[in-house]
């Protein structure tokens, strides 16, 4: 119980710093900056309190906003994916009563993990870029930014999850 809180806190701070100090300055092909901090939401334990997840992801987004001067853009998007995370996972696994206690992202088939990450990333990026441009005229820019940035976020977060989490 306690180790889980510690692990998630360390992951929280580590991901925020990694995001604002490294990944916000990558500028791949001139404009792509992957948002890897949302991995925290992917990996948050399912048996944990839902309130904690909502408040945690709100604060996670807000901390990134503080550093990148973007109002509440990241907070809104991260909160939203934290809220829809469980229904999406239930739909993907096609089970309504999967085992919360023993659930581990590494134990479900890889294709389903990938689908879960892809859907959440696309939703998150779509909200972020929409709120950032804040205009219906910029729909094409929002669309392209969402697709290209998502590709790199997905690749990096899958690699990160494979490398840094244990398969029990």
């Amino acid at each position: 119980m306690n180790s889980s809180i510690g692990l998630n806190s360390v992951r929280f701070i580590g991901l925020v710093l990694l995001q604002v100090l490294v990944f916000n300055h990558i500028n791949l092909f001139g404009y792509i900056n992957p948002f890897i901090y949302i991995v925290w939401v992917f990996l948050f334990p399912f048996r944990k309190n839902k309130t904690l997840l909502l408040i945690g992801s709100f604060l996670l987004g807000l901390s990134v906003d503080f550093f990148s001067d973007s109002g509440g853009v990241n907070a809104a998007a991260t909160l939203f994916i934290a809220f829809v995370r469980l229904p999406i996972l239930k739909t993907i696994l096609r089970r309504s009563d999967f085992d919360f206690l023993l659930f581990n992202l590494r134990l479900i088939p890889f294709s389903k993990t990938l689908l879960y990450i892809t859907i959440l990333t696309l939703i998150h990026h779509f909200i972020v870029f929409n709120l950032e441009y804040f205009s219906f005229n910029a729909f094409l820019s929002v669309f392209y930014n969402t697709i290209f940035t998502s590709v790199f976020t997905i690749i990096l977060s899958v690699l990160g999850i494979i490398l840094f989490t244990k398969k029990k």
Partner: protein
Amino acid sequence: MQQIIYFIRKFRYFLLFLLLEIIAIIFTVQHHSYHTSKFINSANFISGGIYNKVNSVNEYFLLKSENKILSEENVRLKNLLEQKEIDYNEGVFSVIDSSKYFQKYEYYSAKVINNNYTKRNNTLTLNKGSKHGLTPDLGVINSKGIIGIVENTSSNFSTIISILNNNSKINVHLKNSNHFGTLIWDGEDYNITQIVDIPRQAKIKIGDTVVTGGKSVIFPEGINVGVIKDFTFENNQYQKINVLLFNDMSSIGYVEVIKNLQKIEQKKLEQQVNNE
């Protein structure tokens, strides 16, 4: 009453989600409206402090180019000084009456500790704040040209609205004529900004230099902006004028912040005219 409590208990996660989401949206809307006091910005103690620490390490990698820029500016200023001497010698003898001279602008030196240029609304963070005399609405330039306008200040840090921002509208004019226009950015390329509202009488050629106009109280007149890259002239109107910036917005080190000492006087006078 019982039912209300039951309702709240049943939908408590959704209500919490709704509450936090509304807070986030309020922050976002506030962020998109220029000139409302903002809570979320990187000019605070923690993020400003971290950026400052990281920047003091990164600085070492840029020493060479920073030195080059400084020496270039030194050369330019020395040349100006030489010209001054010649003017003095050739001119008629005159007594310099110091009471006739007045200082209109005051310059502060500051360092950029965080810079972004790939988003739609870009901002910079400086390592000086209200403690050093900075207030909102001061112009920020470097030796090559304009950079932006101070938006928020904390005691040790300040955030700058870059010219690469949706909220940035800066009065500019062509160096060789006095036709005014407004500098905006369409969000595409960080080296290229656009000018709108230029009257159709203005004669524009590719390669013309664009400088800041004297209309604003923020920037002095004649600070370099860029050169005209291309433009389209349709329906007897200038449609899109692209300006290639002198500054490389992706690498900005030391900057100067300009304070207009006569700003209040000018604003007051203009207010009177508007009220009549």
